[in-house]
């Protein structure tokens, strides 16, 4: 069992998502930065789809009531009983020890993997927390999470892990269904601009500030998915993230590649980003 002494800004249990229910309007959910989450799982010997604790902006304080092997990846480093640990490394937390998360400047999301995973409710094939599907949308102060004894997979030598975090400033995108409906000048302007992340960005979507002379339009409601970039009539860009709705009504101009989605997930309000169009 681990217990949250404090909750942190936004802390939730996530795995690689809830698949097969989008037709009922149920978002995929799951970890925002898959690269980092998989890394933490791999380090402790878990299968890549094992549920982890996703922390955002500021970490919780957690008390380990049982001893466990843990690892933290992404934008945070781990402290056990006040002692800072190496990034994304398998660490032993003894029963009764307190763990904390220290921002390392590489992003706003961190992942705590616990060897064997978490024994929390599974709804529709996933342990990912989502409002209205799981009992709670996120973890609160005082919550206790039982540990699961999931089988451990063979751990590769640590030297084979690379830390992939946002370093490029341009996101790789494919043209979306409505991209060609924008005129050449608007297209050029979107690709040559630097866009700023707005404060209302969250697990559902990142909003990027509007630019003069760029305006989108509404469409007949159509399928959308995580990684899709929509443009609103007022010229804001909306990058749909893991908790995105399954259908949407704004012009769909881009689809991000997988790694770019992980990069966006680590950005904070005020960060800048641009787009590089690619094709198959």
């Amino acid at each position, binding site marked *: 069992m681990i217990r949250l002494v404090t909750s942190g800004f936004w802390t939730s249990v996530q795995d690689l998502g809830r*698949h*097969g*229910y*989008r*037709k*009922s*309007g*149920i*978002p995929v959910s799951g970890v925002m930065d898959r690269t980092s989450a998989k890394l933490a799982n791999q380090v402790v010997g878990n299968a890549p789809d094992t549920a982890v604790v996703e922390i955002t902006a500021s970490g919780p304080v957690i008390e380990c009531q049982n001893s466990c092997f843990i690892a933290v990846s992404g934008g945070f480093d781990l402290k056990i009983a006040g002692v800072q640990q190496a990034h994304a490394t398998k660490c032993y937390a003894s029963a009764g020890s307190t763990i904390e998360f220290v921002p390392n400047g590489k992003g706003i999301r961190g992942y705590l993997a616990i060897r064997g995973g978490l024994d929390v409710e599974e*709804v*529709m094939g996933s342990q990912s927390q989502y*409002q*209205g*599907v799981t009992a709670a949308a996120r973890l609160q102060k005082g919550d206790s999470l039982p540990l699961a004894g999931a089988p451990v997979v063979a751990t590769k030598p640590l030297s084979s892990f690379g830390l992939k975090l946002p370093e490029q400033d341009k996101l790789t995108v*494919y043209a*979306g*269904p409505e991209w060609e409906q924008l005129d050449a000048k608007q297209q050029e302007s979107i690709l040559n601009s630097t866009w700023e992340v707005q404060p209302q960005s969250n697990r559902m979507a990142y909003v990027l500030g509007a630019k003069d002379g760029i305006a989108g339009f509404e469409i*007949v*409601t*159509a*399928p959308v*998915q995580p*990684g899709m970039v929509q443009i609103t009539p007022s010229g804001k860009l909306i990058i749909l993230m893991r908790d995105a*709705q*399954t*259908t949407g009504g704004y012009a769909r101009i881009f*689809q991000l*590649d*997988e790694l770019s989605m992980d990069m966006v997930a680590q950005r904070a309000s005020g960060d800048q980003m641009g787009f590089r169009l690619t094709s*198959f």
Partner: protein
Amino acid sequence: MRPAIFQLAPKIILLRWSENPGPETSETVWQWDAYLNEHYRDQLVETVMAYCEIALYVKRQEAVKPLIDKLKRVGLNEEFKPWGKPKIVSLPVCYEEDFGPDLEQLALGLELSTKQVVELHCATTYQVAFLGFLPGFAYLNGLDPKLHFPRKDTPSPQVPAGAVGIGGMQTGVYPMDSPGGWNIIGRCPIPLFSTKRKSPTLLAAGNQLRFRPITKAEYELMTIEVQTETFQYEKLQHD
């Protein structure tokens, strides 16, 4: 009606029909969705339908280009309707004042009485085109043009679960508390989405839907039945 087929991302294919949204296009979309899920089940994670499109989410290990080539050769018989007789669902809605805060304003704008709005809203058999937006939210075809009314200029920060609204050419029921821009004319006591039920969603694409007016007393009784898990869902089935 054949769709345009193109690749959107390494593992996403989009099928798009150029026809206008409506009951006929929806039938074509359902046909294709049923066909794809029958014949390509093993290659797909899942599909998502909307008014004029289907998104295919292809499994990571599957090649996408050969699949697109196959899909381009698919010709569906118009008679291919694997879904049988549509399920008809009758949803109780209380249109009384506290439940329909925008009903009066909408009636004024449409130059109808509130009674006429309710009668028109309940007179149609709607078709569930697809689910999206929120878990269990149904996009419906069939709102009477007399009830078409623009969305509110400023969306409400919190629309309660069960709220029945009209926005533009659309009507629907909010399955959970959410911000929303539709004009709220009533409320349904039956949750459209609940993980406590064996089937969490009440509706599915291809269902037919009717709204049935109820009194506040009936609303309250049904709310208690839902809370105590004694509500008989089969009562919603309409013949």
